[in-house]
């Protein structure tokens, strides 16, 4: 059963509660959307991520109250190089949505969502550790998995699988 083609037209997707809420707040914050394989991804502007998360968490129609995961994908060598990815879950409505923020390699900083969900603490530290992305306003932004004095960020695509020898 092959999947239907992905929908990337924002007009067709604006009925979804998450997109509707974000567009009602600030259409400029939404940089695009994609509905593919039954999963919705919303691209958010870098500066709007924390407020977008607060809005989605407190959205009365469909509260995305649970932060499942924060991670990152490195699209080296293309630009914008990094995508920070947030997986949100609505426990009452049993819905998921994925938020994505694109980051240029010149400015690897983004607002932390730890004030919105304390759960983001370890997830963001992991992304900082393995990708080298800074989270502004994070309470304790230090390496999580690698040793404190490690050089480089192992999950970047230009970092060799065997490490530097």
């Amino acid at each position, binding site marked *: 059963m092959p999947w239907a083609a992905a929908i990337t037209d924002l007009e067709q997707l604006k009925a979804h509660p998450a997109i509707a809420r974000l567009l009602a707040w600030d259409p400029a914050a939404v940089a695009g959307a994609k509905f593919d394989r039954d999963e919705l991804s919303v691209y958010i502007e870098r500066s709007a991520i924390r407020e977008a998360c607060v809005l989605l968490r407190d959205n009365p129609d469909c509260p995305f109250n*649970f932060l499942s995961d924060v991670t990152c994908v490195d699209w080296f060598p293309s630009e914008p190089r990094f995508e920070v990815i947030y997986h949100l*879950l609505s426990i009452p409505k049993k819905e998921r949505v994925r938020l994505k923020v694109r980051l240029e390699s010149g400015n690897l900083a983004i607002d932390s969502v730890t004030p919105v969900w304390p759960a983001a603490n370890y997830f963001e530290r992991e992304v900082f550790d393995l990708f080298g992305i800074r989270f502004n306003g994070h309470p304790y932004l230090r390496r999580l*998995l690698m*040793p404190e004095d490690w050089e480089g960020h192992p999950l970047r695509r230009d970092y060799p*699988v065997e490490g530097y020898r």
Partner: protein
Amino acid sequence: MILNMGPQHPSTHGVLRLLLEIDGENVVRIMPDIGFLHTGIEKTCEAKFYHQVVPLTDRIDYLCPMTNNLCYALAVEKLLGLEIPPRAQWLRVLMNEFTRINSHLVWLGTHALDLGAMTVFLYCFREREDVLRLFEAISGQRMMTSYFRIGGVALEPPLGFFDKARDFARRFPACVDEYENLLTSNPIWGMRTKGVAQLSAEDAIALGASGPTLRGSGVDFDLRRDMPYSGYENFKFNVPVAQEGDVFARYMCRVRELRESIAIVQQALDGMPEGPIKADAPKVVLPDREKMKTQMEALIYHFKIITEGFTVPEGEVYQAVESPRGEMGYYVVSDGTAKPYRVHMRAACLANLQALPKMCEGRLIADVVAAIGSIDIVLGEIDR
């Protein structure tokens, strides 16, 4: 005073290091330090073909290998748009619930041992051995099973497997009674667990706790029931929830889950459909051994899958399953080649561990041991 607990400490269930700031016997602050078991599995995945990643997923969580196999297989199958035949789905549910029983038995045994109840440990490992024998019968391995493959399961169960499984399912509820007799109404167990390390529902959600840690705080949410995958919608089971949010509540949730799991096992055994165990996708699924020896085409497919893998259409997928510890999620990104561009594992324990300081701060050091046991951490999954 700062007290260092771990990484080599019997009650930390692995190599967890806790820095405890204490005032006499009272814990003022807890700082978990993790990463001792970091093996870079996510990085390794990027250098392997899709089918070569399956054995890596076993090694993330050595107590529930099949749950991780399942989650990864489901994610890649979703990327490919593969349809899995009913028998394979039911076998997956069956083995997944055995995995849950296996994992919960280790949890119960070690948790009780931490709190001074030695007998329970021996009883739990007795039944766990039976489950591991079933694993060995079906997959050839006791722990690192790699039994679920992309597109189905590896092998047809051997002769007599279902009889052994039925026998175990018949015996097991009495064994759970036995554990409960030793613990549930035991006053010492009650004193060590009731009212200890409480976590409110709001805190549990905000801290990203999932699984029994979330349900023990009164949040009625189970991915198997609420966002079903792999045919779970065909099974009837209850989701145990407890309101108190303490160690005892999480204990009760898991013990009741043992009984629900065995009920699912019974249903899976009774209704096991006949039919193929692999999807009809010759370019993805390895051909039958017999066909490979007699048909040229099957041999070519086999050779091509092994040597150059199979390509997966571009896209990304987040697939979550209810592991014994909570929401286990795989985020798989494909760039259209034969190797995954990115595989990320959302570890339930990593999020659950964040709830530990909230549970223990302001309480006694002895309660920290009880709390660690009650969130059922596996360091392999936390550190990956």
